């Protein structure tokens, strides 16, 4: 049973060659730009850029097809619910009212609402290729060292590394325990009632959690015995030094930041791009 965390694939592309720190920071920077701005033009630009990178890093679409379907479904659902709750939220945001048509007294369709919902959809979706790129092109081993070099204290970074290390073990144990308990007649399927299901779940997770707890001592002893935590700093076997390509990546990312800030301060007077005035 293969239980690797991400579908990391070894390749030699521009994106793969970047240091993990660079990719982590760029991913975070661009995520924050997209979180900050509500200018659909900038978001589309970043979206197009990340799709370009996606192509560049040779991740096959097949690998993520299922995800994209799920995502589209989710975004569509969110769109419906948003409209159901606040059919005129866009008008509130943009301050104008251009009605297209109406279903009844409450549910009108306005240009502003459409524009708001489309913008939001783009906002949700445009960083997704970025996240996929990050996790498909970063060796999990390099992840903790990247966090540490991005100024996360190394103990925190190592906690993430341990999570990646023991997740497959715990997932396998979960399957084993769950199967064995089902063989004893504990119903884990959706057929059971919610309260029964909660109780039955406990039959599986309590052995799982207590065996993990038993291992905490063992693993921390093993780490102490090999000098973990001796100094305020540590080095990393997997760390990749920064090069020219990393500098280029930072320049590109920071120019997106500059663009978003410039637009917000000098052009659109705020986070929102408002085509209605």
């Amino acid at each position: 049973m293969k239980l690797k965390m991400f579908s990391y694939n070894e390749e030699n592309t521009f994106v793969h060659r970047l240091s993990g720190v660079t990719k982590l920071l760029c991913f975070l920077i661009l995520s924050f730009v997209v979180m900050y701005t509500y200018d659909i033009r900038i978001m589309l630009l970043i979206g197009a850029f990340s799709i370009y990178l996606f192509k560049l890093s040779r991740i096959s679409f097949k690998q993520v097809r299922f995800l994209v379907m799920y995502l589209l479904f989710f975004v569509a659902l969110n769109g419906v619910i948003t409209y159901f709750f606040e059919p005129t939220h866009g008008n509130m945001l943009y301050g104008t009212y251009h009605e297209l048509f109406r279903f009844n007294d409450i549910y009108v369709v306005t240009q502003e609402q459409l524009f708001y919902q489309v913008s939001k959809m783009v906002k949700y979706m445009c960083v997704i290729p970025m996240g996929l790129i990050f996790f498909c092109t970063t060796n999990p081993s390099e992840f903790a060292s990247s966090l540490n070099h991005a100024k996360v204290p190394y103990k925190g970074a190592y906690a993430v590394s341990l999570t990646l290390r023991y997740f497959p073990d715990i997932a396998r144990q979960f399957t084993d325990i769950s199967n064995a308990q089902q063989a004893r007649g504990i119903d884990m399927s959706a057929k059971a009632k919610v309260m029964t299901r909660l109780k039955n779940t406990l039959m599986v997770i309590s052995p799982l959690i207590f065996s993990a707890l038993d291992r905490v001592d063992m693993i921390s002893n093993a780490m102490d015995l090999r000098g973990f935590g001796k100094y305020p700093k540590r080095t990393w076997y997997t760390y990749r030094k920064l090069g020219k390509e990393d500098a280029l990546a930072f320049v590109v990312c920071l120019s997106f930041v500059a663009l978003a800030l410039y637009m917000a301060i000098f052009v659109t007077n705020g986070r929102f791009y408002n085509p209605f005035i």
Partner: protein
Amino acid sequence: MNKKELFSTKMLVATGLGAALFLVLFKFVTIPSPIANTSFQIAYAVAGFFGALFGPLCSGLLAFIGHALNDAMSGWGIWWSWVIASGVSGLIMGISYFKINFENGFGKKEIITFNVIQVIANVVAWLIVAPVLDIAIYSEPANLVFVQGIWAAIMNAISTGVVGTLLLVAYASRQVKEGSLDKE
């Protein structure tokens, strides 16, 4: 070990394994609820449980890491507003570490303490942090995110309350017995 470390190796390992448990439960043990983006998450009971045992830093971090990795592995991008809210709920639940002493077992008083804290944690996280961030980042309609928030707070408080409490009771009963055993 004379000086008290802020984050000992043991706490770190507990955080790492706790986050892995959180992640496994988050992925495999959810009971979907009728409102989008929310479900019955047993994983928060793990955060509550580890918080009572190892403190707020451990439970806050494990919920944050677990939730962030879950989003990352799922591929739909990290939903920062909810990831941060998870971290906050873990952090607050960890306060029970300072209020609960397992030496006296885990009786009525401790159950009440734990549950008061976890309810506060869930209310703060899902009724304040998550909706406010959702509004700030995505300009979501306020009533939508608060309805989601109320729902998430109730669901998580129930699963933490039921499962977390039972886990702690089981843990305390193990402790008392293992405390002072004589070789027979």
